[in-house]
């Protein structure tokens, strides 16, 4: 009897709590039904996508259109309506080159120096980043001692602000920094790491890899853990060696994750700015000046600033990124189809 009373009370409380929730949840019901009746099932998709599309439109598409508009203007004013329409003049300025392989022959040499630096940076940094991230993920996927600790260690730099990353490494690499101190202690010749063109470039790659590889390692690790264990067991029973297992099982099945990592790493490398800007300031000379820094300086920081030119440069950079991403996605789909056929 006592239990029944208890159950009844619980039910009453449940109803009392659920009623307002049910009421609130039911509020959009009527207008949504009306919307569906008027627009059909596709209208519902539009309704649910609208918030996302509005955010995307306001924060991505609108700035993109404004940027395109800016790239066709000139003059000193900042507001678009006060600026002079110059058509494709800024693009012409950027693309005026006698020899594209020699930035000094270009009217806007800074743009081409930055483009060349970015190209080298992307090729080397992305390749190295993916190789190191993959090796790290493979190691962390094994049953090693302190696995969770090592995973945290590799992921920790991802949590740091790029400015902090840049400053930490600057303190290590500057003339009177930690690294030179250690070299001195061991009687090894000191280097002016950030003033030498080669070492500054190498430092930019090393620091950006250190800062970001944890993220890519994590994606690859997730991919590795999703590969069914029985495939490895079957391969082992067939006497397949570790190399063949890696090339024939691990790598193909890691393909989708690897594609994501390549696309993300590539986009991030093309956009490299903050940590390298803090670390080297684009120097020595212009050895580590990349496209984003060029755009920032031309648009905002330099005494010779030109917002129209900076906008045009950012549109060109965006175009290259879109092409690269599409090419990779295309390659990824071909790979998938090929795998399906096999």
């Amino acid at each position: 009897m006592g239990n029944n009373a208890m159950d009844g009370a619980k039910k009453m409380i449940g109803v009392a709590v659920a009623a307002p929730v049910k009421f609130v949840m039911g509020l959009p019901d009527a207008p949504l039904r009306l919307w569906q009746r008027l627009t059909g099932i596709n209208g519902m998709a539009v309704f649910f996508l609208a918030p996302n599309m509005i955010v995307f439109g306001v924060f991505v598409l609108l700035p993109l259109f404004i940027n395109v508009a800016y790239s066709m203007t000139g003059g000193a004013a900042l507001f678009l309506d006060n600026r002079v329409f110059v058509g494709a003049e800024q693009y012409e300025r950027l693309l005026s080159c006698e020899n594209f392989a020699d930035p000094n022959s270009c009217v806007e040499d800074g743009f081409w120096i930055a483009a060349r630096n970015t190209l080298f940076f992307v090729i080397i940094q992305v390749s190295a980043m993916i190789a190191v991230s993959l090796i790290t993920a493979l190691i962390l996927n094994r049953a090693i001692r302190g696995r969770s600790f090592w995973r945290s260690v590799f992921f920790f730099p991802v949590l740091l602000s790029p400015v902090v990353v840049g400053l930490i490494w600057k303190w290590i690499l500057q003339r009177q920094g930690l690294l030179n101190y250690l070299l001195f202690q061991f009687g090894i010749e000191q280097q002016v790491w950030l003033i030498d063109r080669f070492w500054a470039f190498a430092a930019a790659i090393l620091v950006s890899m250190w800062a970001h590889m944890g993220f890519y390692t994590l994606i690859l690790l997730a991919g590795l853990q999703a590969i069914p264990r029985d495939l490895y067991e079957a391969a082992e029973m067939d006497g397949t060696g570790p190399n063949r297992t890696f090339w024939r099982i691990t790598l193909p099945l890691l393909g989708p994750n690897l594609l994501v990592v390549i696309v993300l790493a590539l986009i991030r490398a093309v956009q490299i700015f903050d940590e390298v800007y803090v670390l080297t300031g684009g120097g020595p000379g212009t050895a580590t000046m990349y496209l984003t820094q060029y755009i920032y300086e031309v648009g905002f920081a330099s005494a010779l600033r030109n917002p129209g030119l900076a906008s045009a440069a950012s549109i060109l950079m965006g175009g290259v990124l879109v092409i690269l991403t599409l090419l990779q996605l295309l390659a990824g789909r071909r790979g998938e189809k090929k795998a399906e056929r096999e």
Partner: protein
Amino acid sequence: MTKAKTLLATLAFGLLATTTALAGEVRIMWYSDGVEGEVLQDLMDRFMVDNPDIDVIIDNVSYSTVREQLPVQLEAGSGPDIARVTDLKAQSEHWLDLTPYVEDADYWRDNFGDQADWMRPDGSDAITGFMTQITLTGGYANKTLFDQAGIEIPGPEATWDEWMEIVQQVATSQQVPFPAAMDRSGHRISGPNISFGANYVGADGLPAPIDDGVKAMVSRFVEWNAQGIMNPEVWVSASGTTYRAAADDFINGQLVYYYSGNWQISNLSTKIGDTFDWVATGSPCGTAACSGMPGGAGLVAVKYTKNPEDVGKVMDYLASAEVVKEFSERTLFIPAHRGVIAQGLQFQSDDPQVNAALSGFVAASASTDPNALFLPGWKWAGTYYGALVSRTSQVIAGELTLEEAYERMDADIAAKVAEISR
């Protein structure tokens, strides 16, 4: 019910209080080379006690923020109410004419009139602000190193070539990493350029092409960097027009000679203390003059302020003779206020090197070339400085030859003039 009423009343009062504070709020964008930020805060705290209806907020920012972000804010029609700025002329269209808001416009004209043109559009008679300090570029020598090396510090007639030869001897003798350094700045190298006969201004008032005076100094400067006489890290360590000071190297005893300006006096005195002796040496001579570059930082009112009356009160207070005197004596800055200069100043420092350095700069100001005196009020000075610093750095880094750099400087300046003149 009573509780709800109390809550609502508190909320309403809070909102009212917030609105009142905003109405009397004056924001100052301020950068510091030494202790001037602390001195300003102290002065403004006193001002707010006497003017409780005005809330002055000082936004202490880096110099690069003033150089890089303020122009963008101004172009967008926003920004602080008052700002401490060095690029005064090029941005003069954004400054507020304080004439209707200050108590006595004639006081301003009488005491700050000499530099008024530096911070207002050509042909205007507006009162837009005042110079918080008058600066002059010049050199500092590490006297202890000279003494230890048994070498005499060169006199005021010594040339750049002689200076570089002597500081190299001192550096070698004392095993100092670098004999000399100059701040990475187009303004800093302009005094030496003018000393070699450079003239930046064309007959039409627009920038003139790079001339032999610029070439004479820039080619020397590049050579000194290549030889390691000048510390190449300063100019090579960044791209574009980024500012880099070499003060820390001098403070750490890593330099024999440092070319900067009188605004460093307080910084050097505070940080060097009695570690070593240092002296201000004026500007070495070129073939045409022994000139530094005048300039300074001005405090200007921004025309987009919502509280021009309150801004006027703050500016009146900061420009008053007593405040200018106290500010200058505590910060060790040379004031622009005619009356205060006439009265004389007692700089507050126990460091005997400070007064000697200040006297050294006052003496050096007598040899400032007329071409140098013209530049702070010239609209295109910043453009010229930008081209100088970015292209000279590229030559030092081995990316351009000198001839290519001169061509690029002319092209950069021409492009900027064309862009602005659209």
